[in-house]
């Protein structure tokens, strides 16, 4: 009987016998010298690091000035001048907020960070969280504005630094998410006029650069309102941030709505639920759950995007840092100051992205239970 085969004879690869050796030598070989290409990469990397790392070390650590109030001490040293951070951190972190009131800003940062950490614990997820955030918003406003409880009044034109970054971030997310849900529901509505309006808003906002949206809010909004009505500059920027975040998140939420099987909609209808009850009790709780990881991406981006307000002259942490470096004595150490700011942003964003991974695996586990 002839042997019939679909494989090309002689071309199959014979795999080597599995190695029984699991020692550290094996780990090193697999991780760094598994083939001649891998070996070459390792050699190039080691050589590269050996040339770069010592000079980086000398600049950042060995020859660096860690603390001094005298900029000429930095000029004498050949390394980094981290003293600029110690010198300017109050301006970087709090902007032009009155110096003796900085504790209020610090409290806002701690408060908002703590609340964000609490809100990320799945066990605490409930409608009560919205109440907590509403109370928090009032508290933050009282702390920042003052004017009551013996706190001196501070106008938004003096706000700045990390508290402002936090406020811009939290406002865009807390007001942007409900807007996103409304826009996403509208985009999937059976009513053509409502669908058209929502598609129009989403696509136009998503098609524009964020800086141009902010620019419109600053330049065009006053034009469209009565001339005797002036809207606070920060508020205008915040509206722009909310609408931008809302339009992006709306598409994420829409993805979640589409992923809900039609049977769920039918079941809600069969129970006699109207449109809003069926959405709030049946569809949205499931849809939002699915899209949490994707929403986290948008939320992290919203945090990074807060820096855009510095372009229109609002002193968020980046804007405040830029302003603090107008000081001719310290301007030459701008790199060190920006590295500090980058580190602060990195800590927040990295924590959020790790959280996003955690929540993704956790939700995935619940689904396959």
């Amino acid at each position, binding site marked *: 009987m002839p042997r019939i085969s679909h494989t090309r004879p002689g071309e199959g690869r014979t795999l080597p016998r599995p190695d029984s050796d699991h020692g550290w030598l094996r780990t090193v070989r697999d991780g760094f010298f598994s083939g001649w290409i891998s070996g070459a990469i390792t050699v190039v990397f080691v050589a590269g690091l050996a040339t770069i790392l010592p000079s980086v070390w000398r600049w950042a650590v060995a020859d660096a000035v860690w603390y001094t109030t005298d900029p000429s001490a930095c000029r004498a040293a050949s390394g980094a001048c981290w003293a600029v951070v110690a010198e300017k951190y109050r301006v970087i972190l709090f902007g032009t907020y009155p110096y003796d009131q900085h504790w209020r800003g610090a409290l806002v940062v701690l408060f908002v960070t703590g609340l964000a950490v609490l809100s990320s614990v799945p066990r605490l997820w409930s409608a009560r969280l919205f109440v907590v955030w509403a109370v928090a918003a009032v508290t933050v406003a009282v702390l920042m504005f003052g004017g009551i409880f013996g706190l001196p009044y501070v106008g938004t034109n003096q706000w700045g630094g990390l508290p402002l970054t936090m406020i811009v971030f939290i406002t865009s997310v807390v007001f942007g998410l409900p807007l996103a849900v409304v826009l996403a529901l509208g985009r999937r509505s059976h009513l053509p006029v409502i669908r058209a309006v929502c598609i129009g808003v989403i696509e136009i906002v998503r*098609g524009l650069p964020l800086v141009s949206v902010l620019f419109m809010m600053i330049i065009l909004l006053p*034009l469209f309102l009565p001339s005797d009505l002036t809207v606070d500059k920060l508020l205008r920027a915040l509206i722009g941030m909310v609408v931008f975040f809302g339009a992006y998140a709306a598409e994420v939420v829409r993805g979640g709505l589409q992923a809900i099987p039609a049977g769920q909609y039918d079941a809600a209808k069969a129970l006699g639920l109207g449109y809003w009850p069926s959405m709030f009790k049946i569809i949205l709780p499931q849809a939002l759950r699915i899209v949490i990881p994707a929403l986290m991406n948008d939320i992290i981006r919203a945090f990074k995007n807060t820096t855009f307000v510095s372009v229109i002259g609002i002193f968020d942490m980046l804007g405040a840092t830029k302003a603090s470096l107008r000081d001719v004595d310290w301007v030459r150490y701008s790199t060190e100051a920006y590295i500090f700011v980058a580190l602060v942003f990195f800590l927040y964003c990295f924590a959020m992205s790790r959280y996003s991974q955690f929540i993704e695996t956790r939700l995935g586990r619940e689904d396959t239970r």
Partner: protein
Amino acid sequence: MALLFTSHWAAMFWNDAKIRGLIYQATVLVLVLLALAYFALNAQQALQERGITTGLAFLGQQSGFAIGEGAITHDASDTYFHALLTGAINTLTVSIASIVGATMIGLLLGIARLSANKLLSGFALIYVELFRNTPQLLQMVMWYLLLTQLPGPRDALSPIAGHLYLTNRGINIPVLENGTSLFTAFLLALVLVVICVTTAFRLMDRRLRNTGKANGRFAALAGAGIAALLGTWLLLGTPTTLVSPTLQGFKYRGGQTISPEFIALFFGLSLYIGAFIGEIVRAGLQSVSRGQLEAADSIPLSRYDRFRLIVLPQALRVMVPPATAQYVSLLKNSALGVAVGYPELFNVTNTTTTLSGQALECVLLMAVFYLSIALTISALMNLYNRRVQIKER
């Protein structure tokens, strides 16, 4: 009684879903129209008070400001329209350069993340985390800062002595003898190589299917590559020498000077988006199931064909939609050029608005430009997406 009660309510017109829908829509329509009318009236009044006449007539006036760089030069005596055009061309230039850069960085990062070499995958991981978790604008500002801290023209750094000079006024690189920039040449070569090599692959696959012959593949590929490079050389007008920049006074002449503003924007866009593309590539490659790889091994395909015929088509399907979103995001964030002083469209619009006072028209023109380019990218990528999607019978 109960029956009467329900039928009484059912008879009311607002219990008819269709009529209720019409009422909702009419309400929304009226509210939207009212808001628009209110805005329009206010705007009209404000413009009248300021003595500004609306319309696009101002585009024909002299702009009164010059734009330092770009594919076309804009002088103070040129019109506003010309200024906006220059900005739009600059936006496209930096976006195309950055999209090419981000794609190449992303491909390398995605492959490096999956490498068995721990040093390489570790480096790629650190890069991705670092660049994704810090604001793009901050990165751009830092690039600009680093570039302007380079030495002045007289004691420029020259990593390739005599040809490449790094100064705080920009990076000076050679050009081809007829003045064509190296970047244009590179882009042209890239496009031609991709076209020739994919065509060669397609022809060889067809030959394999029809005749069963698989020999001479390396020669065919090498031939396609050489033909592409030769074609580039011919299209560029057969240049034979490079013209290197030379220092004359305080400026380098002869070569091409790339401004620190352009490079800061280019780095800020391509290195940042590249990190995201890298994750998309990694996720795409990982999304191909093991069964597919084992099936490929059992045919048996060579490692290379396995990647080209089994892994890549399936990975592309996963990669194209999120990559599109990143490209559109890159284009839009080129507006951050305003922060480093690169004259792209948003920056020029900003200046034009201030000088002409025609805020409404300027913003509208800018919005139309960004919207149409963003939609064009989406449409092109959708077209490509349709090609790489599964063809179900």
